[in-house]
């Protein structure tokens, strides 16, 4: 049988349940709702828009780390928001956004610690291959670049340079996962999701000088990913070893800074 409202819970003058009755029901309903939602509750991410030297950015941070950075003028911010909302309950938070904006500004001003050690959350990356590529890319230090081919080899798929290119194009965390440090095997700087101008700006801010023809400069040194030895481009060791195992540093100082030692054959400065 249908259970109707009791007379003392129903106010005939206003034809409404009384506030006290509603309060009582809401008290019970809140508890039930909290229990029902707990198993499907998404974690929270804080989002905001910042103005940076690289333009307007949409940034998002989850409890596990930074989860998204999107160039609003060259990417679809709505698509990023949709992807974020599938996985997180979003809260707009100007303070968090401003803090991330500060980190990016410090990074562009030359502070190497500003973003390097920040925890990241690759929740928006579904494919294990892409996760591997992006995680490995974080090991490429500022002031150096790596080719698509070398990155593919570094994650154990030497012939997947095109898949690496696709991964870089869909990188949800540009700047923090440095897809701007990935170049073409012929030495050209290649494309960038945020535009080549931004790629050059980021590389130059990190101390990697790029020629006018958007090619890597002649004074670079090649560091071997496994042996941790760096050589001049003309060294016979560079020609003997597979090209795909080299990280390209702007100069010897950067290579040493990354924990590499100079080759005893070519003796780079």
């Amino acid at each position: 049988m249908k259970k109707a409202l009791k007379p003392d819970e129903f106010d005939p003058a206003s034809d409404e349940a009384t506030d006290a009755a509603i309060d009582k029901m809401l008290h019970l309903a809140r508890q039930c709702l909290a229990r029902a939602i707990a198993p499907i509750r998404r974690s929270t991410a804080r989002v905001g828009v910042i103005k940076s030297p690289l333009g307007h950015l949409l940034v998002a941070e989850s409890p596990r780390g930074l989860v998204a950075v999107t160039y609003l003028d060259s990417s679809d911010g709505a698509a990023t928001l949709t992807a974020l909302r599938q996985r997180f309950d979003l809260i707009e938070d100007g303070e968090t956004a401003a803090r991330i904006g500060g980190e990016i500004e410090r990074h562009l001003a030359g502070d190497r610690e500003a973003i390097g050690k920040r925890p990241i959350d690759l929740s928006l990356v579904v494919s294990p291959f892409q996760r591997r590529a992006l995680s490995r890319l974080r090991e490429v230090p500022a002031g150096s670049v790596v080719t698509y081919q070398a990155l593919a080899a570094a994650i154990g798929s030497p012939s997947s340079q095109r898949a690496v290119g696709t991964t870089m194009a869909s990188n949800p965390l540009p700047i923090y996962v440095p897809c701007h440090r990935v170049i073409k095997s012929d030495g050209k700087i290649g494309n960038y999701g945020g535009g080549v101008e931004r790629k050059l700006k980021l590389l130059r801010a990190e101390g990697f000088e790029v020629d006018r023809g958007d090619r890597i400069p002649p004074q670079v040194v090649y560091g071997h990913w496994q042996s941790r030895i760096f050589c001049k481009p003309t060294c016979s060791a560079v020609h003997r070893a597979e090209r795909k195992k080299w990280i390209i540093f702007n100069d010897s100082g950067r290579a040493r800074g990354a924990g590499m030692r100079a080759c005893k054959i070519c003796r780079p400065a």
Partner: protein
Amino acid sequence: MSTLPTLDLPPPFDEAVARHERELMRFLLRTTRDHDDALDLFQETWLRAYRAWPKLESAAGLRPWLYRIATNLCLNRARDRMRRSRVIGDEELDLAHAPASSNGEHEGVLQLKTAISHLPHNQREALVMRKFGGLEYAEIATALGCSSESARAGVYQALKKLKLSMELLS
């Protein structure tokens, strides 16, 4: 100084619950006229809303969207009861069933409730949302999936029928 683009995100879920729980509970009580049904549908409405939260596009659309979920659930429940009553042949779905009252002065209110319960579904929902929920016609239209004009016409027709019913009864 240039202004930053705004995201126009819907409010966080818990904030939305706190903001709309009372009016939604009232709406469900009015529509179902039953404590337990209202509590069940309240939970189901918010659960469905939470699951579909990523699809909600803006803060402005939240209220009519919630009412639409609640309305659909009420409609489903009424349909289920209708089916069940057909099978077991009882009078459970008698929407005119009103709380028994020994107080004679409630008679008019009861008659009004009975008349409201006899209105066609869309007209009844539109009337309840407009007169008791205080929704705009555009919001009612979104909740019921019709045009603003239809929502307005629904409320008008409902009021006209109620007036006629009450005149006949008196």
